[in-house]
């Protein structure tokens, strides 16, 4: 790709483009962040569908459930929150996503999930 060379011959690249030292630097720096991302993703994917018994939940799982309940209450009201809870199945991000998506839209739901899982 030689966009600028199209406008002025002086800007034409003389050599075929190869990966510059800067690109290699960014590749290496990005690779160093993979471990952090993997740790985060492992936690988040475990918390996504909380199908464990409420009695043996971890602190993180309880926190997510609390935040989620607060969001449901804030968006739909207290009565709906208790009605959904009354179905017997525990509220999780996986089970509440369709409802949030239906009423709030995809982007808002993504933002909501991010806030629920924030700092975990």
């Amino acid at each position, binding site marked *: 790709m030689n966009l600028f060379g199209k406008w002025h011959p002086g800007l034409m690249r003389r050599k075929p483009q190869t990966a510059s030292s800067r690109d290699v630097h960014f590749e290496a720096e990005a690779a160093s962040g993979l471990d952090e991302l993997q740790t*985060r993703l492992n936690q988040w994917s475990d918390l996504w569908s909380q199908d464990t018994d409420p009695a043996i939940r971890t602190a993180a799982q309880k926190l997510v459930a609390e935040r989620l309940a607060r969001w449901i209450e804030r968006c739909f009201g207290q009565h709906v929150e208790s009605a959904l809870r009354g179905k017997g199945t525990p509220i999780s991000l996986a089970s509440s996503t369709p409802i949030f998506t239906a009423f709030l839209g995809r982007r808002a739901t993504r933002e909501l999930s*991010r806030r629920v899982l924030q700092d975990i």
Partner: protein
Amino acid sequence: MNEAELRIAPGNCSATADVIWRALKGLQSLCNRVGTEDEGVIGLARRGWNNIAAQQVHRRRDASMDAQSARERTIEAYQLHAGVLLAYSHRLTRDDALAQDALQETFLRYFLALAQGEDIRNVRAWLHRVAHNYVCETLRSARIRTAVSLEDAGEERLRDERSMPDADRAADWIDAARQLLAPREWQCVQLRAEGFDYTEIATELAIRPGTVGSLLHRASEKLRIRLRKKEGSA
């Protein structure tokens, strides 16, 4: 009106619930007209939600994936695109820490989108758009007064190639071009220099591919005229 109805009545609830309230009233009147047994607004709401949830879960089960698959796909995407995306974020922020944050945040959002069943066709364009939005939001919220405009990929490359005799001239020329072009035209040129094709640029800027062609053509014409004038005066 029973107690349940009172709790979500307009005035007692948020704007979102107010919209839902009005929708449910409409639904109730429709059910009454077609002869459905009146089970109250909350009963209808519960049924409606269950139906919506069931439909969406059913529809998404085929198209989407569980959290584990989303995690694996996110890691695959990271290995493919992280280097380019970090370079892009760095060009936007000029800050190593913020660029790293943008990278992590972009891929976490990618994971959430996949887990929610979003169908992302062009992963590269999607990641670039989310990274760009994240950087803009962060800079805006931190009230950092630095220019949020994109730094040109071409500029970076040319700065790397300091041995080139035209490097200084090219940097001046790029500054002049930035002032000459409209923001949207300049953004198209930048993304084109980044290696994006017309469709990807269109996706990122939320415009039609034809418009991308027009913007690039207009930019090209402006630059050509400017260059001719400059050479004529020299």
